């Protein structure tokens, strides 16, 4: 399945990455090259095969529902680009 410039722009928007106009055509080439190479997977008969989503043969562990960590806002905020009064300061989200 070949992709075009419009698809690259759409995917870049989904991924929240601003790709400049001069990168769009090269990306169309690069991504198509990779997707074409991946096409060979169609040769494999996978009828009735269960997808392998985890190589770990274990069930998810449960634990006591108690608080064992957290409560230190200063440490959480220590790398914030902008913070005040124990909050992250971010651009307006809701118009």
């Amino acid at each position: 399945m070949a992709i075009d410039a419009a698809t690259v722009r759409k995917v870049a928007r989904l991924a929240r990455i601003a790709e400049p106009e001069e990168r769009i055509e090269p990306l169309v080439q690069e991504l198509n090259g990779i997707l074409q190479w991946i096409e060979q997977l169609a040769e494999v008969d996978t009828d009735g095969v269960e997808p392998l989503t985890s190589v770990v043969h274990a069930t998810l562990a449960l634990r006591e529902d108690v608080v064992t960590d957290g409560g230190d806002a200063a440490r959480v905020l220590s790398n914030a680009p902008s913070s005040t009064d124990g909050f992250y300061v971010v651009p307006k989200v809701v118009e």
Partner: protein
Amino acid sequence: MGRRNKSDDDGWGMLLMSELTKLTLKAALDGLRSKTFSSVEITRAHIAAVEAARPLNAFVLETPEKALEMAAAADARIASGDAGALEGAPLGIKDLFCTKGVRSTACSKILGNFIPEYESTVTANLFGDGAVMLGKLNLDEFAMGSSNETSAFGNVINPWKSASGGNKALTPGGSSGGSAAAVAADLCLGATATDTGGSIRQPAAFTGTVGIKPTYGRCSRWGIVAFASSLDQAGPIAKTVEDAAILLTSMAGHDPKDSTSLDVETPDLAPFVGKSVKGLRIGVPKEYRVDGMPAEIEKLWQDGIDWLKEAGAEIVEVSLPHTKYALPAYYIVAPAEASSNLARYDGMRYGLRAEGGNLTEIYENTRAQGFGQEVKRRILIGTYVLSAGYYDAYYLKAQKVRRRIADDFDKAWETCDALLTPTAPSAAFALGERNADPIAMYLNDVFTVTTNLAGLPSISVPAGLDSGGLPLGLQVIGRALDEGTVFSVAGALEKAAGFRAKAERWW
């Protein structure tokens, strides 16, 4: 500058500073325990080596003050008889591991000057056993690469040079290029690394060092910057098979903070090195003989087969029919998982925050400026294959092929106990040589990605040199949780190969 031991009888004699860096981890631990030299002394020797080796660009952050503090504390514990398994040993830490209070960047601009408020479980284990941190090691950005050419801190240069290469700068491999180069150049006694598609084993092969990716779930991923969560595993790069076993024993262990961490005991792995391989069945998978494989690598593989046969193992030809589909399956699964894991880098809570007119613009500009080209390419592929209408055709299909690959190994284990293959399809290549086509770079991992997809333990052991004098590695693959057998076979290969070559110092 030398240091005289109490007596010449125990064989130490005059130990020069520069000789302290030539020691294996095992020999250094013995010397520290017997108080032949102190941790401060051996740490100082390594700090000097690290400084002198800046042309290699293996370290992105040197932490000499912290190292000497940790070394002094180690010496105190040795004196009071409280020495841990790695007490006083100076190590390098791949900059993908969050180290508390010490900048951690994943070698990306997007993390800016991120200083973690927590320690990764793996490094906590190592430091808890008394190891000393020399600094953070260079890697491909977010562990995406096979040549350490995508780092925001620039390329790492392989300490090895080819006799037929016209003095060209070579890649140490990737993504753990800094870790492999540092160990090969005797800048540290060992290093941490991670492997998602071959990023421990391939650089180990390119630098004449030992690198093991353990069974998925053996080491905790908590505190390691995530690339592809179903594939990532931490592991050591070291000078010898025994050293790697010592490091892995310390790094591994169940961690309740990582739900994919296996709740199993870690055996003491060093005793498996040196165990006889008599009677073990070694599988040779015919599909690993690929078109265009250099004759030298074919020959080395045959040497490995002969050595194990001489050591008493039984050689069995096996078939892993879906081998060739592992790379394309990986290049759907890994980017897909990466697109999810890297969504958190949005400029809001840490790292780089770019300018923009509104929230969306800030997200898009931050990620455009903060991520390198290879990372962006993989996020875009991942986003595409997971998007509506394409999920079944790509991601689901890849996971089904992944099941087939895992089943191939299960079938092979019916007739053999371990597998022997080459680690990489070539020796170290020149920097810049394989950048034109992404797929040419991806092909470096053709022999390694299979075990990430199947979650199996696999090690690279230096086994010979190519015609230009560059190291070549052999890979041993084992059953899930059977690192013991992997180390026994690796030890037998190491003994038979007698690989003593070291990179000639040009820096």
